């Protein structure tokens, strides 16, 4: 290990004296454990909140509801109020100059703008 790496304490030492089980033993090398850990969605499913009494608060109960106010439409590029939508790309725009810019955007930028709004159609 290079000198300045050692000096800077960058890397975790493989053996920690205050642990009963070391990570090297617990997680043997070579196995990808990404699929082993359940994501939040799976955790919540396993939690089975339906069987619990509904008036008791739990992780899902306290999720916020949709807003009372209808969501305002803002231009994807400039951020101003956007009364118009481009039918080809489904981007919102505020006025004709912005429209010109919208039409000249490369496809990748269009997808990214839509993804910002969570409106991108992902084809798998």
């Amino acid at each position, binding site marked *: 290990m290079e000198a300045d790496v050692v000096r800077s304490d960058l890397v975790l030492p493989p053996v920690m004296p205050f642990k009963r089980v070391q990570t090297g033993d617990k997680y043997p090398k070579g196995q990808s454990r990404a699929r082993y850990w359940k994501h*939040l969605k799976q955790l919540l499913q396993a939690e089975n909140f339906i069987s619990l009494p509904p008036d008791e608060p739990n992780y899902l109960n*306290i*999720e*916020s509801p949709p*807003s009372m*106010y209808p969501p305002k439409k803002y231009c994807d590029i400039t951020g101003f109020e956007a009364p118009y939508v481009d039918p080809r790309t489904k981007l919102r725009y505020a006025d004709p100059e912005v429209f010109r810019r919208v039409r000249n955007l490369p496809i990748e930028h269009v997808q990214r703008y839509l993804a*910002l*709004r*969570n409106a991108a159609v992902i084809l798998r």
Partner: protein
Amino acid sequence: MAEARIARQTDYDLFSPTTPIVIDNGGSTFRIGWAGESDPRIMFRNVALRPRHRSTGETVTVVGEHDPALFKYFDCTRSSWRSPFDNNVVYQFEIMEYVLDYGFDQLGASSSMAGKVDHPILMTECILNPVSSRAKMAELLFETYGAPSVAFGVDAAFSYKYNQNLGICAEDGIALSVGYMTSHSIPFLKGEPLPEGSCRTNVGGYHVTNYLKELLSLKYPYHASSITWEKSEELKREHCYVAPDYASELQIFKKGTKESEEKKRVWQLPWIPPPQEEPPSEEELARKAAIREKQGQRLREMAAAKRSQKITDLENELHVLETLLSQLEQAEQPEVASSILARSGYLSRQEIESAHFRVSQSLRKARGEPTGTVEDNADNVTSADKYPLVSIPDEMLTPDQLKEKKRQLFLKTTSEGRLRAKQKRSEEEMMRERQNQLEEERRLENPELYLEELRAKYKELSEKMDQRKRLKTNGNGNGNGNNVSGGTGRGERLNAAQRERMRLLTTALYDKGKGEDTFGLKDEDWQLYKLMSKDTDDDDDVVDPDEAELERVATKLQEFDPSFVERTEARLMQSAQEPPRPRTLTAEDYQVVLGVERFRCPEVLFQPGMVGEYQVGLDEMVSHSLRRLPNLDSSVKDHMCQSIFLTGGGSLLPGLEQRLETGIRATRPYLSPLKIVRAVDSVMDAWRGASVYAASEMFSTQIFSLQDYNEKGEDWLRRYNIVYSLYD
């Protein structure tokens, strides 16, 4: 944010095993320290990376942010910074273990001989953490680290209690915690949080920074690599603010008033101006001209030398041939003549003569004297001779001669055709020359009128071209653009050619009521395709002459009219902003302007719909929390609203309080009391509150040990909640 690295702590052994270790396990930052202290000892970003060390090939673990220069020793392409969190719940316990390893190690635990972390641990989690996550965390702490006892608490509650003891907020109130991935609104009654009234929206500081990063990268794709996550966080911290009224703020910017100009912030990226090329000085120019002169001179000399060489060669050859001829003439006896011939290499006297003729011709050409007429005559003389058989009628010839005749006929017609074409071309040239001369004369006579005529002609031609182009693209553009709705049967505006085709096809295929389709039985039917214009041919032939004319007029205008700018260029300048024409870059190109983005990004907290999360914003969350507590009467709710407490890193945005006040006031009864207070230190107060809590005497009643965990089971763990008011 490259903070100075905190050195590993050395006083771990000085703390007795009863001193709890306090950990604030946050979505963005991990803070660890000793109970009772006012500041956590160690703080770092709650992420880990597992790169491969280049020289040894082993995979190592790096936790938190470090000096990026050190990463050159590691291959970081296959790995990325991972967080143990998914939303605000810990799910990746391997990463969590690495983080805890690093945290304990930095706290100095490696120096202890105990072989385990022999202190009670107080850890923060999100409110109503799913029990499986909590169980796994407890397991990790008990079994791997050997902690004797563990307690879990909500970070926002610790912050609230801490500030309550400082007198900033009352024992009844609402805590608004703006976290990394989520924001919570938790009502407090008599110092204890009410989970049934709490409410969570899935937007936080991460979403604000991400929005800013994406907006800037899309607006300045050229600088996309400079707009990193760390830089965006820095920009957010420095320049973002919450607009007191979003719509009116937008209007200020839309109108482009002076106020909006003042509100814009400019980030200047490092930029090196290109080295100024000095205009070449007089000496430079003179020197270059002299060099060019010399080169030209040298070339000319070489050419002259070659030419003279060629002339001398030809002269020599001519001389030789002449002597040969004179020798032949002088030779009286045929044997002498034939021997001379044999020596010279020519077969007959005629050959020598023709060679002589040729050489003298080329000599004359080399010398630059006219030789054309002689050749033409020669040609003319031989044309009749060349094709002798052509004039003789067919019957008088043998089959061989007939074949010969056909060949000669063919040759004659082709050469004649070529002559005719050449003549026509020369005629056209002369005509064009004459026309140009006429035009020149006209121009010189009356320049103004001439220009006017030219301009009118140009306008006419360009309009015709535009119209034709529009018709063409209208028919094709509609078809290409709307692939779904393209097609002839839906009333699209077809151009004339397409309509004609349709008409022909439909009339031909219409069976005139006979009941059977007889198209194609007769050969003549297919002729109708010849009537239809094919698109490709149509374009090329028809457009060409007009386009050529347009070009000619344009060039003329460019020459003579100073105010003429080609219309095509003008149109291009108006329409497309991109692709950016290659030109010298100025300092402005390296500036990133933050205008609307300054308040557009924090607006995500109030209108999560801007990023696609259709939930309530911060202001409505408060009213929603209160609505979730129907059993409380309005006086208590009024009391609560007098102590709305802001905490969490994301709440440091300026202008947040004012905006919240307007928003919440809109949801409360008219003239009900409302007061918004901020935490003393929104970022650190959660840890500080936890530290104070852990240091209190009654703390030991709130913790649970491994034995408890094993005996009481998961259901108990789900209902486990600490009592926060231990030290009132």
